């Protein structure tokens, strides 16, 4: 099976699913979501099977490699492959996909063609998500990077809330602007590369002897695109609008998966291809990361729209991820990459459970709630668990990643790490204030009876909560995949961990 094109197949299944769903005859339109769910589960099965082929001890950077010429005269290959990080990101996306489809079950109540297209677009998005993480050709990555925008644009613009047009256009503008800057970088990089029919391969472009100035400019071109995507302060403002206007399932895929392309890109491209420029930019990046952490948290505290609040918590969390990446320590890197995984599940739980509440209350405004623990105790319980994951409660998975980011950052950059640590206090505030305003207080008078959490909703949240607990107490399976990837990246950068500063003579560790 070693030559089986795992990654292509994993990418193709949702695309085929999308075509099937879109082509369903009108008489079977109500089957669209079931077909979509089936395809998403099938993709997940193949994803897990592919992961089982992956060997953690390999000396190659990429595994499950596929490579074909695509536009040889221009050096572009259809080249796929994954390291531990890319594999973890793909698996996260594949786990979230069926969860999101199930959560979106009643998103398009009018049914018919509109519903078919909704699920078809979601599946198309999955294809691009797999592609963007699996691409080992810089140009192919760029194509997927831009292509992702299209389904998201329509998912927000056609299926979103009242201000969907504004949010979709804003999202598109920010992303396109970032993407265009990156395109310049992509082309410039090729010119400095070895050229040839496969000149865009990541492996060919790694370790180039770039002129310092050129390296820094190209680094910037990539970094800006990724910073918009991540999103970091001050280019974060598209996110809250997009997240609150998008359908919750779309918001999950957008914030939980697509935004990870930003931090993934920083590791894969910024650090690996431009080690000198990455270190040159570090002080500024660290400052932006710390600002993102604090700023995102403060803004979250001040929100009155629950979806916007959750979006701002992500700005804060992405700050942590970037902080750990640019700390250039194995611990910080492992923490950041694990954070990328954990954040996917945390955000999914927060968005989806909040959406379940919003659907019942008919409002996203936090002040419109109050006392809902007495109305829907089950939902209140899972909302609290999701919130506790959001504030990185020890015992739940985000804690391990957050403290590793801080510990790893502190090894090299003490002040940024300490300032970032204040984020944990702010996190307690934004989560607990939200919970207090929505859930506690006297039981409200409601016009009509409200159902507590349904079976379908339980199935949606159960795997997420399981992930919190499993990776909180046993993150090793994920870290075993991520550690080698982080180590390889830091080797490309050419840095080693600082030694402990005061170890007693003769002690081993």
């Amino acid at each position: 099976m070693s030559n089986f094109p795992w990654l292509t197949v994993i990418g193709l299944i949702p695309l085929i699913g999308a075509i099937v769903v879109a082509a369903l005859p009108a008489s079977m339109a109500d089957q669209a979501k079931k077909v979509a769910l089936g395809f998403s589960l099938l993709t997940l099965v193949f994803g897990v099977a592919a992961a089982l082929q992956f060997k953690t001890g390999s000396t190659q950077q990429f595994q499950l490699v596929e490579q074909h010429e695509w536009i040889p005269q221009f050096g572009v290959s259809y080249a796929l492959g994954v390291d531990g990080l890319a594999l973890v990101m793909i698996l996260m996306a594949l786990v979230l996909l069926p969860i999101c489809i199930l959560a979106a079950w009643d998103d398009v109540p009018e049914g018919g063609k509109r519903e078919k297209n909704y699920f078809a677009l979601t599946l198309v998005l999955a294809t691009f998500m797999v592609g963007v993480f699996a691409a080992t050709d810089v140009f192919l990555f760029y194509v997927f990077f831009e292509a992702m925008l299209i389904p998201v644009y329509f998912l927000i613009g056609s299926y979103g809330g009242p201000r969907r047009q504004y949010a979709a256009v804003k999202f598109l503008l920010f992303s396109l602007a970032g993407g265009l800057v990156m395109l310049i970088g992509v082309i410039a990089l090729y010119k400095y590369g070895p050229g040839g029919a496969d000149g865009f391969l990541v492996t060919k472009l790694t370790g180039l002897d770039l002129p310092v100035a050129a390296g820094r400019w190209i680094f910037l071109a990539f970094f800006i695109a990724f910073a918009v995507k991540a999103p970091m302060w001050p280019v974060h403002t598209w996110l809250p609008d997009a997240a609150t206007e998008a359908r919750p399932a779309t918001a999950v895929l957008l914030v939980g998966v697509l935004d990870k392309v930003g931090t993934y890109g920083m590791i894969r491209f910024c650090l690996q291809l431009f080690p000198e420029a990455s270190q040159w930019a570090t002080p500024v990046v660290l400052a932006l990361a710390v600002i993102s952490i604090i700023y995102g948290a403060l803004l979250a505290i001040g929100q009155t729209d629950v979806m916007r609040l959750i979006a701002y918590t992500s700005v804060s969390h992405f700050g942590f991820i970037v902080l750990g990446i640019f700390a250039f320590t194995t611990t910080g890197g492992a923490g950041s990459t694990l954070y990328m995984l954990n954040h996917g599940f945390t955000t999914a739980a927060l968005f989806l459970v909040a959406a379940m509440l919003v659907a019942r209350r008919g409002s996203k405004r936090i002040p419109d709630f109050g006392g809902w623990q007495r109305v829907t105790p089950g939902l209140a319980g899972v909302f609290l668990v999701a919130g506790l994951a959001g504030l990185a409660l020890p015992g739940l998975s985000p804690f391990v990643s957050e403290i590793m980011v801080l510990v790893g950052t502190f090894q090299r950059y003490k002040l940024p790490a300490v300032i970032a640590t204040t984020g944990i206090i702010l996190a307690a505030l934004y989560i607990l204030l939200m919970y207090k305003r929505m859930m506690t207080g006297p039981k409200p008078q409601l016009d009509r009876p409200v159902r507590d959490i349904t079976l379908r909703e339980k199935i949606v949240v159960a795997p997420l909560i399981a992930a919190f607990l499993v990776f909180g107490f046993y993150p090793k399976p994920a870290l075993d995949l991520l550690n080698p990837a982080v180590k390889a990246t830091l080797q490309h950068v050419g840095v080693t961990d600082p030694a402990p500063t005061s170890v007693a003579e003769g002690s081993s560790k």
Partner: protein
Amino acid sequence: MTTLQPLAAAVTSEPAAAHAATGITAYAWLLVALPALGAAVLLLGGRRTDKWGPLFAVAMSWSAFVVGFIVWIAMLGRDGESRAMHLDLYNWVPAGSFQLNAGMLVDQLSVTFVLLITFVGSLIHVYSLGYMEHDPDKRRFFAYLNLFVAAMLLLVLADSYLLLYVGWEGVGLASYLLIGFWNYNPAYATAANKAFVVNRVGDFGLSVAIMIMFAAFGTVTFAGVQEASGGAGSGVLTAIGLMLLLGACGKSAQFPLQSWLGDAMAGPTPVSALIHAATMVTAGVYLIVRSNFIFEGAPNAQLVVVIVGAITLLFGAIVGCAKDDIKKALAASTMSQIGYMMLAAGLGPVGYAFAIFHLVTHGFFKAGMFLGAGSVMHGMNDQVDMRRFGGLSGAMKITWATFGLGWLAILGVPPFSGFWSKDKIIEAAFIGEGWRPWVFGGAALIGAGITAFYMSRLFFMTFHGKKRWTDDVHPHESPLLMTVPMMVLAVGSALLGLVLSIGGTFSSWLEPVVGGHAEGEHPVLPVPVLITLTLLLVAGGVALAWLRYWRDSVPETAPTGSLLTRAARRDLYQDDVNEAVFMRPGIHLTRALVFADNRGIDGGVGGLAALIGGTSSRLRKLQNGFARSYALTMLAGVVAILGAVWVIQ
């Protein structure tokens, strides 16, 4: 997930003195697992477990006690040097150069805590069966109690600072859930939030301490840090010590992070007993004593610990004098008593054992008094205002007697428990040179006098003097389910100190962990003089309280009082300070930022979007819903990009 590796597997992370766990000790993980299982079953089982759930939780708590008891007996069977055991559980966090196994350290210190937590905790479980009998959410309550016990046991059994952190915040979570148990009252929900957030400020300290440890020593296990701290400079150790102290202040409600404790009385009374006696607030003292190797090399950090302890013990005592709410007066007393423990812990080896000793005796008498207060409330329609109590000794004889023993114990009247532990702390505080023994010893001594006053005030106002009951109450004794735990705790309040003091049993028991009392250190005043002085002050405090709150009639509404009384009623303005310095500026800052984020940063982009607004209405026409036209657009886009690139090339 619990692969037991009894031998040799992880020698590197084992403390020099701790042997790999064998026999029953290899099952020490059950201590955490049993109550955690109880919590999980009750929370996931939902209403199906309503009937038997509370009993199941009680059973889980007691079985943890049984396991702890057997572990303790097994430990007694070994001689001093080989008592400490280390249980390696599994590879928890292998993140880059940060490699950490989850493991448990079962030594004299942790077993002492295990016994206290599980025994007192289980008694509180039993009591709650009676106290919470008619609460509709009883099952959830017991689930949280189990969670509390599990988290606290993890905290004291962890073998590294990071695993301790899990229990540390687990305790914070459980207290948040229980303080806010009746959160349909918004004030209670706020109290729960306050407890968690203030604790998080402390957790900031713990996080930074862990960060410094890893950067300096490359490890965060107790054994590893202990080994490395021997060769570390005092700057590093002082920084770690101060950060650990910040964490301890949050959890143990020490100055300046004490403000959550009084509000935490919002929880049902058994919760208060649990928080104040067996779990939670004792965690800070544990952390300091456990980290004795850090503080050994950081005398300045030690000094700060002592100062914090001294300030808090007086702060709590002063506040306690002014409170009319029986639970809040007890809460202030806890703060003050933990202050004594902190002070002792800051004194170093001379005080560690007594800090823990006082923690244990306090665990008994404070739990007993809180349960007694709950019993009073049970009989008085949940009233808490002592000005409407009085003369309850006749109506509630068992409560009066058990509470009375607790009262004698906290006063430090010989031969009751508190005498043996608190007096030792006062003596230890008087050891040293220069100004310190006089200041710290003086504070501890004066504190004893004030304690006697406010505790007697509480006792007399509640149980003696004239009846000042509201018309609708008919005080009655509580059921046996509640009074039996109170009686057991009262026995402990009376005898435990004496039993553990005979021949210095307790000090020598802990000596392998915290070091021994160096010979030749004597208080600056002779011990008999100190004991006499203490007892005189205590007698004075009791007499004053007797005059004012038993002999004289107590007004049913509080008189205006002196400036100090008014300040103490407002907890010495702690909330006013926090609001003025942190809360209000914070609110203004977030509001300003939200405004700026919507207008300012977004403004430029917003303008652009408005420009596009016109365009977008035209674009909308393109969104005709036909998938093929989208596909065509996509294709066109890709072709255009590729074309552009090719041209440039």
